[in-house]
């Protein structure tokens, strides 16, 4: 009799075990969803068109990258320099013009974030001739920008070592 009861218990135990694992997996997914690597932007700006097809330099729009800590999201005036007259009929460009005319800032979503205790300077890396693609990947082949590097410390240190850059803790940490 007792054996019979145990026999009947096995199947629910198995189902419970697997469902638990499914829940863990879905939970992990939900947890990771929070840090979206490729967020949808308020204007579907395409790097494929601008940097890829048209062949514009990164610094054409990201003008501060060689002079400041951040590369800087380009001000709308840079977009409008061309789009005031060029290709004004596309819906995304119309959106842009609307922002420009109503003097509303475009709230772009940040894609590449570093923890607060890391201080990274774009200008130093540009001056050391590090190509943008080393950290950002082939942006000019991306319609929507996606983070393709882990930006983890081990990876930074590997590159610093290979290029004889300082690996002192205070070089990158506050």
């Amino acid at each position: 009799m007792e054996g019979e009861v145990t026999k009947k218990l096995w199947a629910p135990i198995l189902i419970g075990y697997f469902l638990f694992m499914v829940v863990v997996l879905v939970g992990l997914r939900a947890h990771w969803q929070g840090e979206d690597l490729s967020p949808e932007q308020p204007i579907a700006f395409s790097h494929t068109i601008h940097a890829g097809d048209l062949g514009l330099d990164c610094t054409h729009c990201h003008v501060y990258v060689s002079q400041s800590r951040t590369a800087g999201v380009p001000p709308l005036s840079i977009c409008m320099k061309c789009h005031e007259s060029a290709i004004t009929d596309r819906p995304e460009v119309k959106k842009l013009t609307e922002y420009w005319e109503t003097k509303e800032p475009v709230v772009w979503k940040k894609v590449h974030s570093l923890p607060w205790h890391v201080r990274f300077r774009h200008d130093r890396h540009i001056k050391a001739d590090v190509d943008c693609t080393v950290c950002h990947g082939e942006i000019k082949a991306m319609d929507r920008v996606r983070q393709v590097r882990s930006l983890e410390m081990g990876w930074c240190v590997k590159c610093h070592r290979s290029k004889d850059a300082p690996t002192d803790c205070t070089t990158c940490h506050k």
Partner: protein
Amino acid sequence: MIGHVSLLPYLIFFMLFVYLSFTGILLVSLGLSLAFRILRQDGSRELLDLVTGDTKTWIFLGLLPIVSLVFLFGQYLYDAPLPIHQYLIMIAGMAMCSFVVIVIYRRIQQIAIGGLGFILLFASQFFLASTMSLLYYPEHWSFIKTPLPHIFSITVLTQFLSFLVLSALVTGAAILFFYFQWGERTLPEETPNRNVLKFLAIGHVLGPTLILPVVIILQFFMVPRVAVSDDFFASGVLTLLSLLVISLLSLSMILKNHVRYAAAVFICTLITVGLFVFSLSALQATANREHSLLLATTAQRAQNELTAIQEARYTTTLPVDENLGEKIYNERCNACHRFDSVLIGPAYNEVLAKYKDDLAGLIDFIRNPNKVNPAFPVMPNQGLSLRDCRAIAAHLMKVFSETADGGGSD
């Protein structure tokens, strides 16, 4: 994306699926066969015969997939800073040696030979797991001087563990199916050790189905975040569900002491292996997306250059289409340029003078613009064909000379 590059992931998936299933069964059944022989139990030969039946099996399930994988990855990661095809050639060599040794073991049934085959196959599987793991970390490729320090990382061990568990699962299911349900090879009732084999098989199914979920979760923690995609998660969840079905079927076979579900278990196991390999492919495809994009762009550029050369050969002799030039002018150039005033680009009347006797130079510039005047942004490449460029250059020079002449006469 260029045709054949986008086909590669599917082929890689298929070849990995066949290869991992075959070598999995080969590895575990060889191990079991050796164990039976050492323990002087009957059934050693049957275990090995499971998948090593004839030459065709070896060629289509073992040799062909691994050699294809070498070529497929050689194509897929062409020009990558990691010589992945060299590692795969080494793995393929090792696997082939092990195949030869196992064939010899089948003939002469000596434990030492079988042991050597087992070690070779085991090592080649381990290196395959470590090579697969390297694929998930493209950002580290350029720093890898020798792959040796990377083959014992925790990611590699998890990956290899998943290969082993999967191998045990598929072997158990294969023994159940081939020896207990499939007409041709069913073991007769009086076979010695028939029951031992049966419970061994069911054990090899049930054990791995319970361990694999833990390994899958572990793997989710190990793999780099930038390689994770929705496909990877979805195939993980589906793998778990298919494992649940397998475990319930094999539980029923143990409790009620029958083998009626052997075929169902075998099919579900193959689906599980397929889903698992799909999750690996998804991981690898996401991690290496940037490289395949680069490859596609490079191929596209090469193709464009080729077309340009061919075009140049044919179009330079054709008459220039004047209407075409005017049409393109109104569609494109007009957006940034005027003849008499500065807009986004400079005024034509100021810049065209230098091309007056150099039409070819103007055509070259339109085809491939470079920065001339720092006061203006560099002109974007319009992606025009040589025919278009000749037409537009002729149109520009025509209007320019007309206006310049007009201005002169005034």
